[in-house]
């Protein structure tokens, strides 16, 4: 049996997806470093994309996913699902508030650097784009098994920038085409 093919989310996804918009993933009681992530989605002409939907999937601050298949002996966070979703505004901007995830296991014995899993949907995309957002200045980035699959000159597109004097305010853009094109993964 083959999978049902993907089709574009189209320009009207807000109708069906607004009920589960979650731009703030972590309430004040969720433990961890609280962060904001802001960014832009830009098309091949560097025009902002005003009709993109971005979803996040992430581990909690101890590096555990709220999912049955995560059997790690780590602290769970009942108030933290790890799911975020927002739509870009008229100017192609998006914003999330969440907590920085802990490290999760990689393949074999490796450990993955803290990262957010990202799905990007929009009119014009017949199927989602998958990316990852990593954190700046993280020593484990250099040994991350997924970052190491990426051409070193393109790796930077996966690492957020911290605003000056404010390490909790991160900026990460999604560039769909061109020289600075964000790295997208085939999973």
């Amino acid at each position, binding site marked *: *049996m*083959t*999978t*049902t*093919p*993907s*089709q*574009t*989310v*189209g320009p*009207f*996804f*807000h*109708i*069906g*997806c607004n*009920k*589960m918009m979650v731009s703030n993933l972590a309430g004040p009681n969720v433990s961890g470093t609280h962060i904001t992530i802001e960014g832009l989605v830009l*098309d*091949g*002409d560097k*025009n902002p994309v005003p*009709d993109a939907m971005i*979803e996040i*999937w992430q581990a909690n601050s101890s590096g555990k*996913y*709220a*999912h049955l*298949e*995560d059997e*790690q002996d780590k602290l769970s966070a009942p108030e933290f*699902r790890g*799911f975020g979703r927002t739509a870009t505004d008229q100017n192609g901007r998006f914003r999330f508030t969440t907590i920085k995830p802990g490290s*999760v*296991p990689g*393949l*074999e014995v490796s450990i*993955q650097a803290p*990262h957010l*899993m990202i*799905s990007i*949907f929009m*009119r*014009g*995309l*017949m*199927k*989602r*784009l998958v990316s990852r957002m990593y954190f700046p200045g993280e020593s484990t980035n250099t040994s991350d*098994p*997924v970052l190491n*699959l*990426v051409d070193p000159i*393109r790796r930077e597109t996966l690492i957020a920038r911290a605003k000056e004097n404010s390490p909790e305010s991160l900026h990460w853009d999604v560039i769909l*085409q061109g020289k600075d*094109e964000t790295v*997208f*993964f*085939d*999973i």
Partner: protein
Amino acid sequence: MSAPIRYRRPLPGTQPEYLYPNYASSIKRAPTQPLVSMPHTLSEITGPQFTEEDFKGSGCDLTQQSSAEPLGERIIVSGNVLDENGRPVPHTLIEVWQANAAGRYLHDVDQHSAPLDPNFTGCGHTLTDAQGRYRFVTIKPGSYPWHNHHNAWRPAHIHFSVFGPAFAARLITQMYFPGDPLLSYDPLFNSIADKKSRDRLISVFDWDTTIPQTALGYRFDIVLRGREETPMEEPSGKRRKK
């Protein structure tokens, strides 16, 4: 920790490509660099899970969201969510959205001259049951024009968003109706090269779920990616234990 049992990769032609020039919006939005292929880790084989408590009230009857019923042909859309191995996908969130019977969305961006229906939002959601089944009551959406090319019309469709058991299994798609003459002209439907896969997007008229004097039934089964049956080979050629 052992390597996770990965989700299968789609067979060639069974999923659309990113760049499909007949779909004009893909030209400036499809990635131009090759995607980076990667194995599955704990991050890909887990994913968000939802329960009824996440929603206020039921969302599976789109004809009962107002004091009066919407205009149009009442239909029942039901089916199973399963994986490629034929296993049901229970308790997973399905979100739907659609145009009204006249082919108009309740959305600021939709400037089609067809009328809005004050009794129809076109928005629904449900969770599959323990056997992976779902059911919506709605009205048959109308076809509508769009600007992709000269005299472009979308065949009637309902958008489906399904989360499934893992990040890797996430799917957003569109369900079409059997016998729709617009299907052969639609670049979105025809973006899937493999005919058998393409036809999976067309619901089947279903006497069994049709309710006499009330509503016609359409069946739409959704197949998500399934797991490989065995763990991945280690580089040495030895198999890992499960």
